[in-house]
């Protein structure tokens, strides 16, 4: 156990801890750290983003050094280390998507929302991110909403529809 960690404040809800426990159970008993990726996702879902306190709380829950959890949180793209809007839109602009309009789809969203990549609309509703290949190039252009919802064939009408649905 890590006794050096003295920032145990930002409690995760019992619900979140229960979910984390379920992830922990997938791994051998002495390999709790294996659940850190899932635990950070669960924490991010609950808190909206990962503050250093949240990361430290996850690390402490899993009995790992906080910097090891921070390494993980900064290594994988989809962890948000800053607050994001209610809807985080990630548009794939990698080559296969770009060949079918990925870049233009991103431009279109930028224009509609009046923001660039890595910006959030002033009302806090949308954050736009540039994504790398999502493994869905056949459905290009593709866009991910809040990390977990994949939207395919994001041509202008589909984008209009999606943005209209978000409220």
């Amino acid at each position, binding site marked *: 156990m890590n006794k050096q960690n003295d920032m145990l404040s930002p409690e995760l809800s019992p619900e979140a801890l229960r979910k984390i426990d379920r992830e922990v159970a997938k791994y051998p008993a002495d390999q709790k750290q294996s659940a850190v990726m899932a635990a950070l996702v669960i924490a991010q879902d609950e808190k909206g983003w990962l503050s250093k306190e949240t990361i430290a709380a996850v690390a402490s829950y899993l009995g790992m050094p906080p910097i090891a959890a921070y390494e993980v949180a900064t290594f994988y793209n989809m962890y948000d280390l800053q607050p994001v809007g209610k809807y985080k839109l990630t548009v794939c602009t990698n080559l296969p998507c*770009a060949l079918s309009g990925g870049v233009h789809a991103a431009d279109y969203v930028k224009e509609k*929302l009046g923001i660039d990549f890595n910006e959030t609309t002033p009302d806090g509703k949308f954050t736009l991110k540039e994504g790398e290949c999502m493994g869905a190039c056949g459905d290009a252009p593709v866009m991910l909403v809040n990390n977990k919802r994949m939207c395919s064939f994001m041509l202008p009408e589909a984008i209009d529809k999606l943005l209209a649905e978000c409220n």
Partner: protein
Amino acid sequence: MALIDTISPLLTTGWSKGDAGWSLKDYEARGGYAQLKRILSSKMTQDELIAEVKKSSLRGRGGAGFPTGLKWSFMPKAAPEKYVVCNTDEGEPGTFKDRDLLRYDPHSTIEGMIIAGYAVGAKRGYNYIHGEIFDIYQRFEEALDQARAAGYLGERILGSDFSFDLFAHHGWGAYICGEETGLLESIEGKKGQPRYKPPFPANFGLYGKPTTINNTETFAAIPFILGMGGEAYLNLGKPNNGGTKLFSVSGHVNRPGNYEVPMGTPFAKLLEMAGGMRGGRKLKAVIPGGSSAPVLPADVMMECTMDYDSIAKAGSMLGSGAVIVMDETVCMVKALERLSYFYFEESCGQCTPCREGSGWLYRVVHRIEHGQGRPEDLDLLNRVTDNMMGKTICALADAAAFPVRSFIKHFKSEFEYHIEHKKCLVDPEVQRAGSGFFRASSVARVA
């Protein structure tokens, strides 16, 4: 749902009902889990099983094309704790077959993994699923629950002596976790930084224990191979390139999607299945095996058949079977710039040549694309790739280098044009039109 077609359905047999045919019942109705039952009831030996897989000449579908049976045979027999790991971290640009495999037919992968566990003596497995396809991860977990409830997973499977359990682990946005040892690190709850090999996973894998790691499509093929026999599977394809393969066709075709064809099918046939060139335009180039594979010009590609050996002979790699089709509306400098950016962003950062070189490559290509290229830049790019290739822990550095070298090699004049004229050879409006993204001229702001 992307369009699908096939001329020899094996892996895709269950896909026809789309999202409605994935569950355990459907799979069993298609003859699913019969091979597992047969193996367990007949008490087939591990050696017999591995021999059958060897006979099929199945080669790993994750990119490297390593013979699967041989890989399994590397697992030490005596080790008390072993693992089977499935690589569904499909992040290689252009590849989207494993997603559909798990979406429409997750149980074939599950059955394949259980059989692999039996073959190598593992009691536990993990499937590492690309973070961006979270819905697929959830479906896979559901499928696992179904399999567990039906007794296909867990202690003493179907009353036999064999116990095996399987779990899903998801990624969260790091291409490098597709590299098998980066993936293992990631399951261990660390950054996905690849490990130096040797030792290979078969000796030192997950948690330091012997581990067999294969691609999703590789595992999914196993029940079919055992169903039809290794020899019959091999005969579907061509020697040394057994069976069928899924090809993810993307880019400038009319029907992007996954196509299952026998190994050795002519590229022209595959292109035809994918609906031919979008808008009837002219084929310019193809990346035949995912973004890491060298690009091939149209004429070379049109002569190829879709198998490891033919594509290798043409100077590229079959890789993951991701066929990125580019027509004449593509600016090759811009295309390379995007790929170089990808490798720059995705380098894990541990090896000096990759960490520093991938950024250097991107910046120079970026400069050229933005009209600040210098005549000596092309030699510089080649020299930098020279210093990267074969000098790193994993193959990402090579993957970053191949596109640069091949794009320059085959489309040098286009780069030279860019450097000299400080603009694309292909007019930006033509490029836009090629993408098929049309929109109203005025955009209404929503925020």
